[in-house]
C-alpha cells in the first residue's frame, strides 16, 4: 500500500463530518461514498499539509475531474504523489 494512501486515510478521518465506511478504499468517491463537500475538502487540505510539507491546493485536483463523482481517494493519492515528487 502506498505511503500517500495511509496519509490520505488519516486526513480523511480527521476531516470528515459524515460517518465513514469502516474500511476506506482507493475507489471510494469523496462525494458519494465519504460525504465530502467543498468545506470538508478545505479541512482535508489542512490535514494533508504536514505530509506534503507546504500548503497544497486541492482545488487543482478537484478541477482535474470531468465529473465530481470521479474524485476518489485513489485520484487524490495520485495527485499527492505527483505533487510530492515534483
Amino acid at each position, binding site marked *: 500500500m502506498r505511503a500517500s494512501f495511509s496519509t490520505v486515510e488519516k486526513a480523511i478521518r480527521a476531516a*470528515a*463530518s*459524515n460517518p465513514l465506511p469502516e474500511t476506506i478504499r482507493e475507489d471510494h468517491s469523496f*462525494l458519494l461514498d465519504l*460525504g465530502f*463537500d*467543498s*468545506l*470538508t*475538502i*478545505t*479541512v482535508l*487540505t*489542512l490535514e494533508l499539509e504536514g505530509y*506534503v510539507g*507546504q*500548503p*497544497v*491546493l*486541492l*482545488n*487543482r485536483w*478537484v*478541477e482535474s*475531474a*470531468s*465529473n*465530481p463523482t470521479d*474524485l476518489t481517494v485513489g485520484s487524490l493519492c495520485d495527485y499527492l504523489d505527483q*505533487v510530492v515528487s*515534483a
Partner: protein
Amino acid sequence: MSPPIFSTHLDAGGVLHVQMDTPGSEVNIFSARAAEELIELMASVDAQTTRALVFKSAKARSFINGAQLMLASAVQSPESIFEMTALLRRAYASVKRCPVPTIALVTGSCYGCGVEFSLNCDFRVATDSPDATFYMTEIADYLNTPAFGSTQRLPAMMGLERGLGFLLWGHRLWGKRALDHGLIDALLPLNDIDASLDALIDQIQRDHLQPHAPKVESADDITRIARATRALIDRLPDDYHRIYTRCLDLMVFAAKRGAHPPTEDDFRRELAAAGETLVEQQAQAARSFLYLRQVAERVHVRRLPARQPLELTLRRGVDVHADAFFDELEARPLRLVHYRADALASDAPLSLHLTPTRDADETEAPPPIALAMHGGAPPTALPDDAVFRLRRPLPGLTLEACERALPGTGTRPLLEVRLPSGGERAPGHLFEWLDACGFAVIFSRARATFLSDRFLLATLATSLASLRAGLSPGDVHATIRHMGMVPSPLLSARQSFTPDDLEGALAPHLPDTWEGPVGQHLSDLLDDRPAQAGAPSARLDAAIHLNLLATILTARERGELAHPTVSDVIARELLGYPVGRTSLCEHLTPARVETMLEQVDPRLLPTAHIALAQAFVEHARAFYV
C-alpha cells in the same frame, strides 16, 4: 446510508413545512441528491390537504448557500452546462409549478443558487437580521454569470438598477433594504417567527398579500441605467469587462421585456452564457480563491460552533472607536446576540466585553472575552499582552458602505483579530459572531503592528515613493487599476485617513533613501479631486508586489501569520486584489518574483525587502503546490 436532506411536516392548519438539512455540513448545499429528493417530494404535494408550503432550514446559519461548488468545476465545456445543471433546474421548476402557494422562509444566509431557488417560490420572507443575508456570489466571487434564472427574474422584481446592484455589484441585502428593494415580500421579527409566519400565510390565503407586481421601466430609464453601469464596468480590470457586460446585457434584455414573464429561450440564453463564462480562466481562478478563503477561515477555527446566547457590553465614553463599533453592530440585530451599553463597571479592564449570557448552554458556553478596539490611525506599538485586539484597517469603511459600493466586487470590511500572546487559540464563537455581523475576519499573532495595516501601508508607501521617482498621481491610480484592485486601496484610504494619520506609520515601509516628511506626496495621492489620466507603470506594479511579498515573508518568519491563505484574504478584502487573477500568493511564484526584480525600480522600496525577494527566488519554493 445518509439521512434524507429534506424532512416534512404537515401542520394542523394544512401548511406543509419542508425543512432542508444537508447532512454533515455547516451550510445547506443544493446538491444533485437534494434535487432528486425535492423533485420526489414536490410530486407528492396534495393540493387537497395542503394550503401552503413553507421551505425552511434546520441550520441556524444557513438557508441555502449555493449548489455544490464542485459542480461548477466539473463544467469542462460550455455545452456541458446544460446536462450538468438539468437535475437542479428540474428541481427548481418543480417548486415553480407547485399547485399551492410556496414560501421561502429565510432565517440564515441565502447565497447564489440559494437565492435563485427562492426566486422559484411565490413568496420570500426573511427575519429582520443580517443572519438572513441575501447575496449573489456568481459575479462578485466566481466571475461567472448565473445559471438558474436570476438575470431574467430580478429586473422585474427589483427594477433594473437595484437588480444590478444585487447581482452585478454584489450588494448584500438583508432586512428592510431587502424588502424595499423588492427581493422579499415580508420581514419577520427575530423573536416571534412562528406566529408571524402563521399570520402571513393567512394573509396570503385571503389574497391580502400578493407577489410583487413586475416593475416596468421606460426605455429611456433602461438606457440611462445601462449607460451608467457601463461607465462603472469601465473602472474594473479590463479582463472583467466581458463578463460584466454579458450579465448587464442579459438583465437589460429582461428589463425591456417589461411585465412579460421570461420564456424558456430566455433561460436557455442565460444558461449558455453561464456555460461559456464558467470555463474561462478567470472563473477558474476565482473558484480557486474560494478554496483559499475557506482554508484561511479553517486555519484557526476548524469547525464553527453553534451560536450561544451572547452579550456585547460597552462602557461608553472611554474609547470613541469602541463606541462607534458598538453602535454600528447594535443597528444590525443578530439572533441570540444582545447589546448593552453602560453595563460595565468602571474598573472593567477594557470597554468592550463579549460574554455568554445565563441562557447559554453550560457545557458549550464560550469563555468571556475582553476586546480592545483599535480604530483611527494605524497603531505603531501594540502591547504584548493577553488581550484580543480588533483592528479595522479602513476605519472609514462601514458595513453599510460596503453593501452599497459602486462598483462593488463583493468585498467586506476586513477585521483583524490579534490573538493574545501565550498561544491562546482563536475563539470560534468570536469568529462566528463577527462573520455574521458582516466582516471578513482574519486572525493573526501580530506583534508591534497589525498585519492588515502593514499590507495597506506597504501599498501606500510604494505608491508614494513612485511619486517622488517621477510618476504622477494619475500614473499611480492607473497602475492600481491595471493591477485589478477594486475597490482601489488608495480611494479606500482616502475615505479613512488624513495625511497626518499616516505620516508616522508609513516610515518602516518607505525606501531607505526617503528623506523628509511624506505630507505633500500623501496629500497628492489622497486628493479627492480626480487625478489626470495616467499610464500604468510596470515598475510600480512590481514594487507593490515585492513590498507585499516582503510583508508576507516577514510575518511568516516571525510566526505572526499562520498560513499564506490569510494574506490572500487580506489582499482581496483590504486591497481589492482581483479574484480573477489568482490570489496574491499564487501570483507570487519564484519565477514571477524574479521577473519583478528585473523590472523594479529599487528606489521604490526598502533594500531589505528586495533582499527578501531575492532570497525567495533562490529558495525556489512557491507558497502553494
